[in-house]
Every structure is written in C-alpha cells, then in structure tokens.
C-alpha cells in the first residue's frame, strides 16, 4: 500500500512511540514463542477430516465472518470510523462473484479477485463522500449507501434475482485436485472449505501486515487524535479513504466466499441490520485487538447455534449479550481477559 511513502512520516514516529498499554501480545515467555496462528490454521484445515459435516459448516461460517469482522475492525478499531453500512461491500462482493460465476460461468480464479475489485471501486466512490463527514453523519451516510445497494439488489430482478435472490451459485472447479492424495477424495464442499481457509488466512495475514505497517500506525494516530495527525502533516481524509477502500475490498472478498459457501446470494445479505451484527461480532471479541473480531465471530456463531436449539428468541439473547457487553465488558472478550490477566499479574507481584 502506501507504506513505502510514509516511512519518513513524522506521524509514524509519534504513533510508534505511543504506549499501547496492552498486555496481550507482548511478553516473552515460552508460550508466546509457540506459533499459535500456525496451529489455529492447521486445526482449521483438519476440520473436514476430524470434525464431520456440520462442524465444517460452522467452521466455514466462522472463518468468513472472521474476515468480514476483521475488515470492519480496520475502520472501527484501527481508524476509529464508525461505519454502519459495511455490509454494502460484503454484498457487492457477493453479487459480483455470484453473477459472474452463475450467469456468465466465469471461473472462480477470475470472479474472486473481480469481486474484491468491485467492492473496492464502490468503496472508493462511496468512501470519497463518507470520509468528508464527521462522526454520526459518517455513520448515517454509510448506512444510506448500504441501503441503496440493498434497494438495487432487491429491485433489479433481471440481474440480482430481486427478492428471490440468486440461488445455485456453482462451486469452483476442483477437478484438478482429483489426483492429489487426501484432497482428491474429499467432497466438493470440503474442498471449497479448505480453499476458503487458505484464502482467508492469506487475507488476514495481509491485513495484519497493513495494521502493523507505518500506514497502519498513521491510522491509529488518526483514530486517537485526528487534529494532531493533521497538525503534523498527515492528510487525514486521504488516509481514511485508503483505510475505507482496503476494508471494503476484504469485505467484498469475504462476501464472494460467503455467496458460494451458502449456495446463493440474497438481498437480505445487504440489509442494514447485518451491519449491526458484524459490528456486534467485532465488539464482542474486542475491537482493540487484531484477533478480537475472529474470536467474536467464533463466539457469536457458537452462541447462536447453542441458543437457537432451545428457543426462537435469539434476538432477545443477542440484545442481552450486547447489553452485558456495553455495560459490563466494553473491551469485549479479549479486553476482559486482558484485564483479568493484568489483575492476576499485579496480585502475583504484590
């Protein structure tokens, strides 16, 4: 990204110097040297063999939600932009990929990047207008844009299928895997799951690089103090727009995978309440941590399937979880653990 040009930026030094104040991720004991991300990745890859059909289904949902939530957190946690319409980019990606693959029989290898590109373009256009607004107006305009996408998806019958959606999106072609040991014997849905896991791992790695890059540090500075960032010569709006486009791109990629995973793209994917859901995921995990949103995605998918087994009042429980979060653990799950850990350490020292 623009990181090359910003290494000499004064903002970077300022941001880097600012204390993070977090315990998780620092420390140098033995546990921190274990490659946890690699282990999680390997566990995720093993699910089709050890977890069965349903756990693969859940794991795929969690993985896609995780990418979607991490992309939102690039705005929410990293840049401090409250987007209430992030689902628009997810939807654009899903529709671009779905329409290309179903209507025009374009192979996945082209449709997938195209969906990211489509989402990026829309993010560029809408973001250009959004970042000029402050706080609540920004949230409202992102909401308006997402509702425009929803209205188009809902009404443009010939292209999007309207209220009936676009079912029967084909899986990518996995014939080339047929002679690979282990992988060749898997069901197509499991092969697609593995592809999803790999693509999401790569995407998360890229976002992680971006957040930790000088560019990412500038974004954090903007979040903490936009006036100061502007004062030391950062083009705040430009950086915000860049973050917006990056976030939109990855949301679009997540959407493309989701459309294939759920075997169809529907207008409801783009309805505004879905933006609220992914936001809840992000905050549930902890928006101050890179791994917060994935953990939030995991927790929410798991809670959903546990609770809906017993009651049809899932929204009530989701609301209650949200209340608990807002008033009890504003830092989310990781924030709570962080606090607990800190308290324990203090107790040990005393």
């Amino acid at each position, binding site marked *: 990204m623009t990181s090359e040009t910003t290494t000499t930026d004064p903002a970077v030094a300022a941001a880097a110097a600012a204390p993070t104040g977090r315990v998780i991720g620092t420390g140098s004991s033995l546990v921190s040297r274990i490659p946890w991300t690699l282990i999680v990745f390997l566990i995720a890859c093993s699910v089709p063999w050890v977890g069965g059909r349903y756990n693969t289904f859940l794991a795929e949902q969690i993985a896609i939600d995780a990418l979607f939530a991490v992309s939102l957190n690039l705005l*929410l946690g990293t840049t401090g932009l*409250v987007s*209430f319409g992030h689902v628009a980019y997810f939807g654009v990606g899903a529709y671009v990929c779905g329409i290309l693959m179903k209507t025009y029989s374009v192979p996945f290898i082209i449709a997938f990047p195209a969906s990211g590109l489509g989402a990026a373009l829309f993010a560029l256009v809408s973001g250009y*207008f959004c970042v*000029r*607004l*402050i*706080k*609540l*107006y920004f*949230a*409202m*305009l992102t*909401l*308006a*844009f997402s*509702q*425009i996408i*929803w*209205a*188009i998806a*809902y*009404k443009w019958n010939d292209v999007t299928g309207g209220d009936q959606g676009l079912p029967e999106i084909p899986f990518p072609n996995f014939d080339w895997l047929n002679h690979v040991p282990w992988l060749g014997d898997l069901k197509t849905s499991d092969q697609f799951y593995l592809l999803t896991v790999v693509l999401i791992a790569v995407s998360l790695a890229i976002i992680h690089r971006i957040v930790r890059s000088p560019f990412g540090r500038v974004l954090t500075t903007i979040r903490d103090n936009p006036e100061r960032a502007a004062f030391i010569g950062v083009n705040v709006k430009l950086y915000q727009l860049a973050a917006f486009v990056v976030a939109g791109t990855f949301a679009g990629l997540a959407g493309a995978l989701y459309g294939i995973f759920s075997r169809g793209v529907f207008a409801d994917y783009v309805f*505004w*309440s879905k933006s*609220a859901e992914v*936001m*809840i995921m992000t*905050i549930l995990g902890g928006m101050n941590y890179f791994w917060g949103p994935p953990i939030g995605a995991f927790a929410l998918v798991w809670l959903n399937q546990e609770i809906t087994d017993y009651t049809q*009042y899932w*929204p*009530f429980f*989701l*609301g*209650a979880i*949200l*209340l608990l979060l*807002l*008033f009890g653990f*504003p830092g989310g799950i990781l924030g709570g653990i962080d606090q607990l850990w800190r308290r324990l350490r203090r107790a040990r020292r005393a």
Partner: protein
Amino acid sequence: MAASFLFSQFMGGLTTAMFLFLIASGLSLVFGIMRVINFAHGSFYMLGAYLAWQGVQWFHPTGAGFWAASLFAACAVGALGAVVERLFFRSLYGRDELYQLLFTYALVLILGDAAKYLWGTDQLSVSTPPILTGSVQIFGATEPLYNLFITVLGPLIAFGGWLVLNRSGVGRLVRAAQMDREMLDALGANVGTIYTGMFVFSSFLAGLSGALVTPIQSIVPGMDVLIIVQAFIVVVIGGMGSFWGTFWGSVIYGEVLSFGILIFPGFSLFSVFALMAVILIVRPWGLFGRPL
C-alpha cells in the same frame, strides 16, 4: 377529475407526512439535544401500537375507549423511556457514539422479542373511534375524518413544540443544554433532569404516534424496523435536531412518495435512499438544519 384527484393525492401525502412527523419529531429531538441516534424509537412506536390495542381490549373491547387507550399507551411508553434513560442511557453519555448506537440497537432486539412474547404474532387491529369514522368532501375529493384529524394534529404538535422550545424557560434550558452541556452544568442547572425529560417526551411522542396509527394500519411484528428507516430518512432530509426541519422533511417525503407512484411506479425504495445520501453529501445537516 384531474384537479380533485391531484388534491386527494396531495392530501394523502400530507396525512402520510404528518404521521411521519409525529414519529420523527421525537427522534429528531433526542438527536438535537443528546446527539444520539435512537434506533429504538421505532420499537417505542411499535409498543405504543400494541399497548393501545391492549388498552382498547381493557377499557372497551368493542372499539370505543380509543382515546383513553392511546393516552395510556403514550404514557406507558413515556414511562419506559424514563426507565431506559435513567438506568442505562445515562451512563453512556460520555462514551463513544458507537456504544450509544449499539445500545439502542440492543433495545430494538429486546423490545421486538418482548412484544412477540407478550402479544404473539397475530395481526391486531383497532377500529377508528366512532366520532371520526366518516369522511367529508373537499374540492370533490373524499377525505376521511381521521386523516384530517392527523393532518391538523401534526402542525399543532409542531407549533406547540416550537413554542415550548423557543418561548419558555424550560425551552431556554434545553437549547442551552444542546449548545454547551458542561457550561450549563456549571451554572447549576440540572442537566440530567432536562435530558430525562426530553427523552421521556420523545418516547411519549413515539408511543402516541404508534397508538394513533392503529385505526388505519394493522399491528404486526416487524413494524418497528419498517418505520425507523422511514423516520431516519425524514430526519436526515429535514435536518437532524431541527424541529421545523423535521416537519418540512416529512412533508417533502410524504408528497414525493404520494406523487412518485404516479410518475414512476417502480420507484420509492431506491430514490428515497438516494435522496438521503445526496442530502447527506451536499448538506449533512439537512435542508433546514444548522451545521453542528
């Protein structure tokens, strides 16, 4: 024919507009003073409708007693507003707007399911109060009395609200709280009470509009989410926090919708959101609001 038809279309738009104004004014009020977008405003509206139905069943099951039931519903929702503000909202004022948005969204989820639990999923309906069942002929157009009543009530409430906000002692404090909370606090005024009062009044309006809509609409689960999107659009067009702005925003929205279906039938959804986006881009503070 053409003139009377256009007139009835205009009056229809006006009725729509005044209903929206009743709902949106409360939303706009809370935004203007507390800088909070209250997603739960639609839920309060829905509760008002359900409580009005419940009131009619209690007071006079055959359909009379509508006025008592409406007042009861509005007051009950106002009381709920007081509880919500005192118990929860209060501790969120200093926090990021993200938390406030999500809190009101949590209310949407909880109140929606609560209504479903209490009243089930059956569609409910309330009869028009007997005194307003008829209709009158104006310029050759048939105008239902109940619609006329709403069309008159809207401007009355707008004018009343404007009077209170601009010509009374309470109003001065409210406007001061809107401009500089800390300063007012320092001067010894009880800002907390003002905030509670405004939130209760806003909830009261939501409950009242929910109750008043029952004679002409069915009460169904999901009416909360439908209305809040419309109310948002109105508030954005007119200007968030501006009372008269909301009024004119409602009129524009109502008339655009009413005449829109004549000009382009497939219209509405897209254009309405596009209008909202354009206004946010060009004049984020709305047509009649002032920049923050």
